[in-house]
Structures are given as C-alpha cells and as structure tokens.
C-alpha cells in the first residue's frame, strides 16, 4: 500500500482513507499509549486525542520519513501531555530517597515474558520512572531530549533511568527465577 497516496487521500478528506489510516496504526499506537498510562481506558483517551492531532496536522507531514514514525511521535507527545495535565498521575520526578535496590545477579537478563507482561511490568514503575524508561529504552530518545521534553536536567534523567532500569531488571530477574523454580517443581 502506498502510504503517500493514503496521506493525500486523507488530506482530501476522504472518509475511507481516514479510516484506513486509523486501522493501520491504531493497534500499535494503542500499545504505545498503554505503556505510558495506568489503564486501558486512559490509553484509549490518549489514542483518540493523538489521532485527532494526526488528522488535523497531516498537512505538515513532509513525506520524508515513515508515516508510522511520525504518528508514533505524535502519540508519545500526546501521552506526555496527558500525564502532565492529569492529576491522577504524578509527574514530579523528585522521588523520595529510597534504599538502594537489591543487587541484581544479571545486568542483562533475558526477557522471556510476553510483550503484554513486559508492558505491565513497565507500568508498575512509578510514573516518573515509567515515562523516562519508555522514552529512553523504547522510543530511543537521549537524555538531553528527554530533559527538554519533561523539563528536567539531563543528569536527573540519567539517574532516574538508572533507577528505573535497576527496578525493572530486578523484577524481570525475579520473574525468570520464579519460572525456573516452578519448572523445577514440576519435574
């Protein structure tokens, strides 16, 4: 399917083309929104808002990169704005001094769980950690960009990411160990 053709038809206001574009990206983009929010309902709200922005600003797409990447960028920005506006989410990145995490056995564990399980693990992180981890590890932004997006220092972003990563690795490690234990138990 020619994405440029699809975009041009959407710009002409063809309802069929608009629906096609939505169906093409709705599933993956809902996954993006899911990772930033705490519930599927919130994720769908962000998805709606994001697609409205996509269609109203589609004339700004310059046909230079992938359409999916452009849509994804809008979804990420919309998610962050949602977090900032929504009082249910703590966007403060000043976390209380927590005791150091347990030392992990493996700094680079395998991820054996499914995508949904991993996403749920990420969503267990505190909101600030969750956002920074998503932006750095999944979206691929560097800490300077993250600092600009969230209004924090680069060093803060680095330290928060390190904490988030450590937590997540610990949980993944724990899950892997639980799997091993249950596997041994069944033998």
């Amino acid at each position, binding site marked *: 399917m020619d994405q440029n053709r699809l975009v041009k038809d959407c710009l*002409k206001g063809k309802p069929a083309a*608009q629906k096609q574009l939505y169906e093409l990206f709705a599933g993956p983009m809902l996954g993006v929104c899911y990772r930033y929010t705490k519930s599927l309902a919130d994720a769908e709200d962000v998805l*709606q808002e994001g697609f409205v922005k996509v269609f*109203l600003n589609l004339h700004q797409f310059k046909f230079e990169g992938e359409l999916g990447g452009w849509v994804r960028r809008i979804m990420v920005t919309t998610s962050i704005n949602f977090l900032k506006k929504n009082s249910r989410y703590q966007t403060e990145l000043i976390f209380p001094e927590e005791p150091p995490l347990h030392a992990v056995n493996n700094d680079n564990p395998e991820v054996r769980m499914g995508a949904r399980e991993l996403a749920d693990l990420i969503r267990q992180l505190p909101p600030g950690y969750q956002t920074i981890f998503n932006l750095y590890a*999944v979206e691929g932004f560097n800490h300077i960009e993250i600092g600009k997006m969230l209004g924090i220092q680069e060093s803060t972003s680095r330290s928060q990411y390190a904490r988030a990563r450590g937590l997540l690795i610990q949980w993944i490690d724990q899950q892997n160990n639980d799997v091993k234990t249950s596997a041994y138990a069944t033998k």
Partner: protein
Amino acid sequence: MQQSDFEKRVREKMGELNFTPSPPVWPHIEERIRQKKERRRVFVWFVLLALVLGGGVWWMVGEKLTDDRQPVTEEKVEGKKVKGYEVADGELKDRSEHTVVTDREAEDKISSETKIRIDTDKQRITGERKEDTRATEAKIFAEKKRELLGRRKNTEDRPAINKGKKNARTSTERTKSDKPAADTQAVVMTPPAEVPVQPGKKEETAKETETVMEKEAVKEPQKEPGEEQTTGDTAFAIEKSKQEKKASKWTSGISVTAGISGTGSGLRLLPMVLRDNLYSSPVTNPGGPVLVPPGPSRVRNGFSLGVGYVVKRNTGKRLSYSTGLRYNYYSTSVAVGARRSGSSMTVSNGTGSLITTDVIYSNARSTSALGGVQIYRNSYHFVSLSFDLEVKLGKKPLYATAGLSLQYLAASNALVYSPSAYVYYRKKEALNSFQVFGNAGMYYTFFQNKKNPVQLGPQLSYGLGRLEKGARTYLFAAGVTARRALNKKRF
C-alpha cells in the same frame, strides 16, 4: 549510557505490543475532526465578514466626521423648519456644535473698502479654526479678489448684493455671460491650490482601484463525484448522493434588494486642512469675524432598491458563482436653496472641462436661500452586470458571497456642487457613467425543505470608482437581499 542488549530486547518486545481499540473510538475521532474543521472555517469567514462590514462602517463614520468638521454657516431664516437642519431662534443651524455669528456691519465695511460686493453667496462664520488654516484660506481668497478686481475694472456693470431676489444674477454669472467664452474660464475662480483637482487628469478607472474583498476561501477538500458524504456507507447516504447528482448545476431566479444608499469620500489621502480649503476661503477683516464663502451641504443617506435576474452555477459542493443583470436605484438627499430659473452658467467640473447648464440651485447656506431652503433628492438609476463567488459555510444553508459589478448610469437627476461657483448644478456629464462596485454579503436559505425556499441576507456594495468627475465621491449601498429560484429549484 550506551544502550545494552537489554534495551534492545525490551524495544523488540514492545514492538510486538498490539491492542484492538474498542469500537466507539473511531466515531469519536471522526466527530472531533469534523467539529474542529467546522469551527476553523466559521472563524475565518467571520473574520473576513467582520473586516468587510467594518470597512463599510468605517467609510460611513469617516464621512460623518468629515461633515462635522466643515464650517457651519448661519443665515437668518424667519420661522422656517428645514428638514435635516435646525431652525432655532431664527437661525438655521447645522446639527454640529459650531457657534455662528452674523455681522452685517462687518460685511458692509469690507465691501466698501474693497469695492467688491460679494454677491449672493456671502457667508460668515466664526468658530474654532486653526490660525494657519485662516492664513492659508485668507491668502487664497485674496488672490481670488485680486483676479476679480482686475476683471471688474473692465466692466461697466457693478454687481450688487443679492438680497434674496431669486432672479438676481451674481457678478460672476453676469461677467461670464457678457464676456466671450475665452474669458469665461479666467473668471471662474478655480483656486490654484485646489487639490485634488488636476486639470487634464482623467477620471479614475477601474484599473486604479483594487478589489475590496479577498477571493481566497478556506480550502475545502474537494470530494470526487459520487463519493459518499460524511454519513458513511448507509442507504440514506446513497439515496442522498443520488438526489444531489440529479440536481442541475444551473439555477436561475430573481433577487430584490432594499436598503439605504449614500456617498462616501473614499480613501483619506487628503489632509483635513486641504480638504476644507476646497470649499472655504475667508475674507480677512481685521478685528471682525471671518467671512467665508459657502461650502456644500451635508449629503444625507437615502433609499436604495435593486431588482434583477440572477443565474447561479454550482462548481463544487460548497463553491458556486453567480452572475446577473439588475436595475439599481440609489438616492441621497441634500439641502439646497431655491432654483435659479432662467439663468445658465458654465462651470468647471474639476477635470479641466467646462459644463454649461441651466439647472442651478443656490447653496442652502447662502443669503439667496432665504425662505427657499429645500431638501433635494438625488436619484441614480443604474443597470448593472454582476459577477459573484459564493461559498457555503458549514452544513447550514448559509452562504458568503463576494464579487464585482459593472454598473451603467442610465439616468440621474443628481445635483453636483461647484466649489468655484458655490452653487449646485445638474448635468449628467458631471457624473461618471460607468461604475465598478465591490459587493459582499451573506445569504441564509429559509423554508429549505418547503416548496418555495427563499434566500435572505445582508448585502453591502461600495463604489470603487468616483461618482462625480473631479470629486472624491463614492456611492455605497447597504441593505437586505432576498432571492428566490425559479422553476421550483433551489439556489
């Protein structure tokens, strides 16, 4: 921190994450997009319409302010009520707040000193005038007196003051009628500094003016023929699109417009001082009031009417253009003095050419107007050919329209003021026969689903060319237009 394999694995896993949104999500997105686009469109058209109407109001208000600045003259009118003017304490006053003083002794003194009797159109005024304005006007009037004095010495007749006799001729008129045509032009007191009159300058044409309205519309995505509308693939939508296809692209009907018309002074390129000088030149009288020749009376708005045949063609779902042939009637009113029957005069129309006419009315602000002030209605009969673009706004049957019309002045009884002779005269040659008007307006379709739908809405037309040759006078009309399609069609 360089991304390790862990981050890569996480990213790969997250790329597999896929959800199915619930069914209501897409309809909500569609609805929000439609609402936002409609709001944007209405806002843009609202701004455009506000600019057009605001511009029209600005012209009219500006014209009113200009009139207020003109000097008020006072004449003794015994117990006469004149429409548009106030007669109080035996004095005819304009509605502005200038104070007026009569001083006949000063007039006699000046006359005896200069040996020149300013005839019928003597004016006296006091009020707030700037010193530099008085000096400039005094200089101009002194030049005129010298010129007239030179002519007077060669004549045997001594002009007398017109004390209300309708048949009395002014010295200017007598001189003009006695002298051969070659001298007439010299007697006509055309101020050398008369701005914007420029001898030899041709009248403005439509090329010198710009279209008032912008013609670009909000870009509406064009839909392919036969494509479903916003209602989606439903039976209702299919039936609706079939009906729309059946409708002819051409529609004709009649339109009627009624409202008010008036004249404006166009672009404010002249400083106020120079504009005043066109109509007033005081006589210096040390120690006494300033004597000023008369200026024109204020032009009042009148009734306008238009009837015509309109043909409209739809070029898209929202865009259409229309053309039509109409008869337009515009009118204004002005206070004038008595008509001078039996006399003719030759005046300059401000473009270097002379006009001879025998329809002359005194200025309402002159002594000859005593007891004879009347309200004269200027009528203009035009035949016009118009071309307009129409855009439908939103889903409602609301249309915005803008365009141009070329109008031919078929007949007119309008009086034109001569700033050199201080009288009003009637001559069609003093008016520009062809006028280009800018039009703007809106229509709303009433009884759309009934047998006889009618479109109704406000309309504004403004002349882009001068109405009078040699004078910055522009005709405008504002009113309500009603349109009805013929043969049971819809516009």
